[in-house]
């Protein structure tokens, strides 16, 4: 593109042969990122560009009586003001699975912060001020804010005329999706139980709080199409939703990934994509939209808050008898990923334990609360919080050690999930618990120094409010199971294009995929895979765009598995082509060309006996091998809608945590001293990144345990804390040391035996912290986050 500066770039990285898989190769984009040169989506710039701004509803549920944009349009510097009436086609909604989300509100708004109008102007402040001059008259409607208000007689319907494929089997139109799982006979099994524990748990609404705000640049094309540079998790999913609304064929919406400042599920849904394109096409000028933090809290879906009712039984020798549970997830005003979150929450509601007899139900509500969808851990997080609290309760009631109790009931390879699906890869649950328990504990009273108390090491930190008088310590454990990849029969494929040629006298591989690099390090791993498979040192990573087939989403811990698998697979085919080329050129020189197993190594064609047959440079001289192939993992199937039975998942990932906390019982403050993790990663393709992912995931779990919650006023359904002043994420002072013990038990079905790793650590860290706080205080604590008033009883 001419005129666009700071565009995404090719990343070329050399590396010796031992910079292949298994090495802690450094990021190819690291230098760009530390020098400030990396082009994030909010950094894009175009001569003559305009700034877009979104006007959002100030109420949660209302009829729109009128919108008057004339005053806004009359402002100097304003180029366009768009409302629902300006949408170019009949397609006015979008959505991941159910197309229920309006591009701009029409007729009514269903949640606080819903987009109503768009402005394009020559300065962001001009756009903001013009938007403030749009006058909208609302007639407020009654609210639906929880299960009671959503499903009672005569409840207002969030979506009046549902036609989606879940509408036929849900018990109420304000329920997006319902998944029961019934296996064995939970009633009969309950009668065998010597102890029964029940609990009601509440999981607060968490925000992804990625640091790079929603942003991007749309540039109108000369052919009537548009070029969109944007931070997203899945280019092709965006494209599928954007093109119909614009009334353009998909090939006229050319998407390129720009730098992504974190995602964690919050970029699975569209935010500003269509808005920027509409403004660009209307004005004929490039339009950039950058949300500020306030708007970002309205610009993406959050983690489903949940209420969970659990009943477990166990025999007196400590074996689980049964599980009955009911999980109610609040999906908010639009469906987003709610149906899939329901599938995960229900199918993983027993956790990594052997329980034969279950009676499970999970539902997601439509309400007038903020829309909820994907976030790291995706439905499994909420369940883990509840079942781990239950395990501690049971152990306590039986007088057993909580870790031993878990180990006694731990699933193993061959265990069946409540869906009837066999876990057919290593499931080292007991071993992970053993490992975290075996790690040395941090020293007691670590705040005590020779000069007195180092207040920085106390709960409350620098605020100097105590010198440790009321501080008690606790230790807690938790373990969890997360599925990897998209489940329930989804065609979860990826595409990779790999080109091999000689550049500057050296064999070079170029890897082109549409994978969204959101910080996880996929670009590093792709280069490592290409080096391993093709024996080259130089690998170039092509920017991700829609000129190559879909890579699927950077979510569900799937990208290294699926797009990594696609890169591996394409490299293998490229290797075959290179060898064919070699046979054609040099086959007559040595019989091994025809008889031996050949590999590419150190820039050469080598026999399995180590004999060098040719240099890749000579084989490739004057030719390039270039292939684009799709790759799929094993298929999965949908869960039965009545019984929940079905082989719904591809792979599982397991992590265990031990949390050590100090609680100031007088102040109601918690300091997490250490959060040790053991995780099975199958095969660590890049150990440095693996540990980084585990520590990052652990910290997000810590956040929801003690501080993170979007607070929605139950009376108005308005968000009360859309800022980093009021929505707290852990700082470096809140985050403890996170020792990590990585286990590598290969999954024979996966490329290199790897396991998706990104999400599992987010599951168990929250219940481990809660268990530790309970251990320190003796309090029941059944909700996240734990706040001071829960600890002091005030």
């Amino acid at each position, binding site marked *: 593109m001419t005129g666009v*500066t700071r*565009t*995404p*770039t090719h990343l*070329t*990285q*050399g*590396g010796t042969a*031992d*910079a292949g898989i298994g090495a*802690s*190769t*450094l990021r*190819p984009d*690291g*230098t*760009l990122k*530390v*020098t*400030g*040169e990396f082009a994030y989506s*909010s*950094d894009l*710039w175009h001569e003559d560009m305009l700034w877009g701004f979104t006007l959002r509803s100030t109420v949660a549920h209302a009829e729109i009586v009128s919108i008057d944009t004339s005053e806004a349009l009359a402002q100097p510097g304003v180029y366009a003001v768009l409302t629902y009436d300006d949408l170019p086609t009949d397609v006015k909604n979008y959505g991941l699975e159910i197309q229920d989300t309006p591009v701009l509100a029409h007729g009514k708004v269903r949640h606080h912060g819903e987009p109503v109008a768009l402005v394009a102007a020559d*300065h962001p*402040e001009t756009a903001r001020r013009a938007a403030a001059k749009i006058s909208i008259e609302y007639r407020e409607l009654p609210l639906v804010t929880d299960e009671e208000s959503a499903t009672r007689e005569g409840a207002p319907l969030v979506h009046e005329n549902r036609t989606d494929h879940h509408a036929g089997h849900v018990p109420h139109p304000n329920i997006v999706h319902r998944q029961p799982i019934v296996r064995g006979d939970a009633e009969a099994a309950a009668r065998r139980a010597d102890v029964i524990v029940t609990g009601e748990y509440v999981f607060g609404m968490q925000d*992804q*709080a990625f*640091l*790079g*705000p929603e942003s991007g640049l749309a540039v109108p094309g000369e052919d009537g199409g548009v070029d969109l540079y944007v931070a997203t998790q899945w280019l092709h999913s965006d494209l599928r939703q954007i093109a119909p609304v614009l009334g353009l064929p998909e090939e006229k919406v050319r998407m390129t990934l720009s730098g992504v*400042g*974190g995602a*964690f599920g919050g970029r699975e849904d569209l935010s500003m994509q269509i808005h920027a394109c509409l403004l660009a096409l209307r004005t004929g000028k490039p339009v950039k939209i*950058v949300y*500020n*933090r*306030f708007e970002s809290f309205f610009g993406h879906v959050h983690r489903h808050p949940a209420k969970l009712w659990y009943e477990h039984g166990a025999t007196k020798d400590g074996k689980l008898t049964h599980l009955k549970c009911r999980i109610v997830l609040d999906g908010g005003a639009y469906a987003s990923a709610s149906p899939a979150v329901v599938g995960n929450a229900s199918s993983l509601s027993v956790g990594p334990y052997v329980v034969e007899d279950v009676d499970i139900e999970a539902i997601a509500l439509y309400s007038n609360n903020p829309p909820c969808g994907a976030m790291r851990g995706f439905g499994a997080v909420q369940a883990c919080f509840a079942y781990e609290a239950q395990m501690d309760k049971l152990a306590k009631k039986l007088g057993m050690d909580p870790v031993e109790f878990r180990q006694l009931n731990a699933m193993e390879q061959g265990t069946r999930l409540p869906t009837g699906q066999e876990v057919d890869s290593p499931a080292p649950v007991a071993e992970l618990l053993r490992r975290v328990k075996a790690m040395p504990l941090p020293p007691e009273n670590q705040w005590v120094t020779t000069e007195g108390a*180092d207040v920085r090491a106390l709960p409350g930190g*620098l605020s100097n409010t105590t010198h440790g008088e009321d501080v008690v310590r606790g230790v807690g454990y938790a373990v969890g199971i997360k599925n990897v990849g998209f489940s329930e029969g989804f065609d979860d494929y990826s595409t990779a294009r790999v080109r091999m040629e000689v550049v500057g006298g050296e064999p070079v591989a170029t890897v082109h995929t549409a994978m969204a690099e*959101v*910080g*996880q390090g996929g670009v590093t791993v792709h*280069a490592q895979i290409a080096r391993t498979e093709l024996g080259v040192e130089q690998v170039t990573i092509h920017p991700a765009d829609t000129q190559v087939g879909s890579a699927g989403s950077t979510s569900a811990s799937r990208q290294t598995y699926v797009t990594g698998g696609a890169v591996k697979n394409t490299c293998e085919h490229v290797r075959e082509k290179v060898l064919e080329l070699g046979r054609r050129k040099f086959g007559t020189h040595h019989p091994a060309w025809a008889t031996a197993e050949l590999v590419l190594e150190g820039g050469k064609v080598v026999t399995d006996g180590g004999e060098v047959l040719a240099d890749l440079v000579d084989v490739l001289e004057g030719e390039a091998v270039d292939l684009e192939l799709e790759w799929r993992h094993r298929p999965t199937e949908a869960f039965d809608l009545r019984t929940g039975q079905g082989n719904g998942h591809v792979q599982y990932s397991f992590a265990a945590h031990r949390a050590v906390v100090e609680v100031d019982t007088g102040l109601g403050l918690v300091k997490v001293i250490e959060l040790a993790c053991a995780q099975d990663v199958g095969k660590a393709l890049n150990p*440095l*990144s693996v*540990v*980084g992912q585990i*520590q*990052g*995931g652990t910290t*997000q779990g810590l956040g929801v345990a003690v501080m993170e919650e979007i607070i929605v006023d139950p009376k108005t359904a308005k968000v009360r804390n859309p*800022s*980093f*002043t009021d929505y707290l*994420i852990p700082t*470096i*002072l809140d*985050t403890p040391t*996170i020792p990590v013990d990585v286990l590598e038990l290969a999954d024979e079905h996966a490329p290199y035996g790897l396991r998706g790793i990104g999400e599992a650590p987010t599951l168990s860290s929250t219940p481990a912290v809660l268990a530790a706080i309970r251990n320190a205080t003796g309090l029941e604590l059944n909700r996240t986050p734990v706040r001071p008033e829960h600890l002091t009883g005030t």
Partner: protein
Amino acid sequence: MRVKFTVNGREQQADDVWEGESLLYVLRERMGLPGSKNACEQGECGSCTVRLDGVPVCSCLVAAGQAEGREVVTVEGLADFAEQRARRGGCATGACGTAAGTAAGTASSGTASGTSLDAARRRQAKPAGADGRTGEQAGLAPIQQAFIDAGAVQCGFCTPGLLVAADELLERNAQPSDADIREALSGNLCRCTGYEKILDAVRLAAARGDARTTGTGA
């Protein structure tokens, strides 16, 4: 209004600046220096941290006019800044007690590079050319090299602000304890890393011979 100040050792000026524009906005959108990040624009996350006459500040909270006539160092200028500090024996700014802005003074007389406005506007991100295993690069400040080597960069959005803050810490305190590091970086949010590798990076930079050594990361 017109605002003139020195950025990374070079005199810059911006015209038609609105009264309410932040220093962050002027750097990013008017001067073509997007390295300082816009993660919250509320003074809460530290992603926009720059040094203003040597002192780390959230540039989103500084009105552009307040920077008039002053010295700003952004992540884009960090390597030059660290190199000059090394040349002068470890003290480039007022933070160490010498006159503020001495490094920049030299720069504007033409001996240091600095980014011209025009060049910055046209700047395209450059491909990395590092050795994949050690990542060692010329032209990075020690703290930048340490962030790469320690794996402290994931999405990298917090990185520029953390680098500016960490570099200033090491300038003040070449051998910080973990508690010192945590205290100094407590105003910088990172959502990806869990901070452990960021601590590693600062420890690594300190161990490699403190902020007075620069250039090769050795």
